[in-house]
């Protein structure tokens, strides 16, 4: 849309490199609902959605509530010959607290409970000020980077499939009832799916960059908040270099 050069091949201003294949793209304004893909590998570069930040915050809170419920409510109930055992994940953690397999239990609980809660918290920390149009909190960029780096390690949906397999294995041995915590995990899968459809990293990074955080000494920010992708081109490129 702009005819004046809004990019600089010497400093990288106004350019985006595809994280998957390194192809250079120009940053341009996008309307909500559009999706930008890499011309070479098809990697989604940006897909801004209207009101995505508020939605993401709401979904993050939802998953926090579900996860806290999932820790303390009974997960599965098993009974045979009158011996019964209803266990919440919290009980499980306590039961293994002194065994040699403690590291395994800690790792499993971290992957299914700890990391999802941590990610939800980091996301709220990053987005809450941005959604209200205020400058981000300190270290918001680090928080968001960690939240994205932890994504492959939070495995709630895999845990649900694992539970299904375990149910079949134990069915011959005892009768099993599903507890509320199991359904919380199922709900969590859908919350995660919804969250993923609203997530656009590029929009969040751009918002972080433009909302007053000094990210770059060559790139005096705060020049314009209404033009989405062009603040650097309006400013003097050599201002602080």
């Amino acid at each position, binding site marked *: 849309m702009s005819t004046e050069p809004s990019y600089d091949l010497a400093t990288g201003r106004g350019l985006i490199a595809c994280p998957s294949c390194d192809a250079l793209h120009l940053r341009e304004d996008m309307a909500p609902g559009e999706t930008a893909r890499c011309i070479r590998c098809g990697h989604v570069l940006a897909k801004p959605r209207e009101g995505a930040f508020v939605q993401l915050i709401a979904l993050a809170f939802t998953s926090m509530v579900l996860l806290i419920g999932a820790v303390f409510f009974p997960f599965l109930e098993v009974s045979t010959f009158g*011996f019964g055992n209803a266990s919440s994940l919290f009980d499980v953690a306590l039961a293994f607290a002194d065994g040699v397999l403690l590291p395994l239990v800690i790792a*499993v609980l971290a992957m299914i409970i700890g990391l999802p809660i941590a990610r939800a918290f980091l996301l709220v920390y990053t987005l809450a000020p941005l959604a209200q149009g205020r400058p981000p909190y300190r270290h918001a960029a680090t928080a968001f980077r960690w939240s994205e780096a932890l994504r*492959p390690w939070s495995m709630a949906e895999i845990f649900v499939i694992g539970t299904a397999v375990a149910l079949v294995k134990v069915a011959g041995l005892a009768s099993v009832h599903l507890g509320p915590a199991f359904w919380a995990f199922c709900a969590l899968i859908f919350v995660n799916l919804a969250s993923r459809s609203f997530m656009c990293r590029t929009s969040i990074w751009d918002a972080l960059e433009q909302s007053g955080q000094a990210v770059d000494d060559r790139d005096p920010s705060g020049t314009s908040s209404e033009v989405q992708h062009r603040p650097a081109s309006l400013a003097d490129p050599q201002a602080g270099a």
Partner: protein
Amino acid sequence: MSAPTEPQSPVLTAHRAGLIGCRSCGRVWPQQETHCHRCGAELVPPDRRGLQAVWAWLIAGLIAYIPANVFPMMSTQTFAGLAGNSEATILGGVIELIHYGSWDIAIIVFVASIVVPVGKFIAIGWLAMVAGRPANVEQAHTRLKVYEVVEFIGRWSMIDVFVVAILSALVQLGFVASIKPGPAAVSFALSVAFTMLSAQSFDARLIWRGLPLRSRAATHRTE
């Protein structure tokens, strides 16, 4: 999906433009920068040297996968060992499931803990060998597809670890039956984690480094 329609003109990459792109947030910086000023991530040039980390994690994953198959995943004790005390390896667990007649679950476990890990070792090893080598656009797209599948599917191998964790937590019925996790559970979890790290440290940008600079150029450059 954007089909490979562009190969007429070669694509300018950040690397060829003398710049460096951030793999975490996409921002582009001059080549001498070491950290992204926007997100704080380390800036790594697309370089075959980065493959050392891939190989290291892959070998660690392979080593951990051996005890994971040899030792029992879990041991089941029924009636304090009087009615039976069985230990099952990964493969043994699959066979047991087939005996129960639950083919569907047996297939899930077999795919998640044998087919996927072994396929992943082969796929990552192949990618690390061919990355950065001369290629045409179709080959590059094939490699990218393989990489995406490996990255997506890797986490699902954790199913078996979760099964053992749930069963051993749940089946603590004192005299009647109890299940204990075996040493293979830990080494299998480690193996999956190591191969996930291996896939993550693979730099997908290397897939495209081998493309010829000019579209019809027959002179494949070796570097």
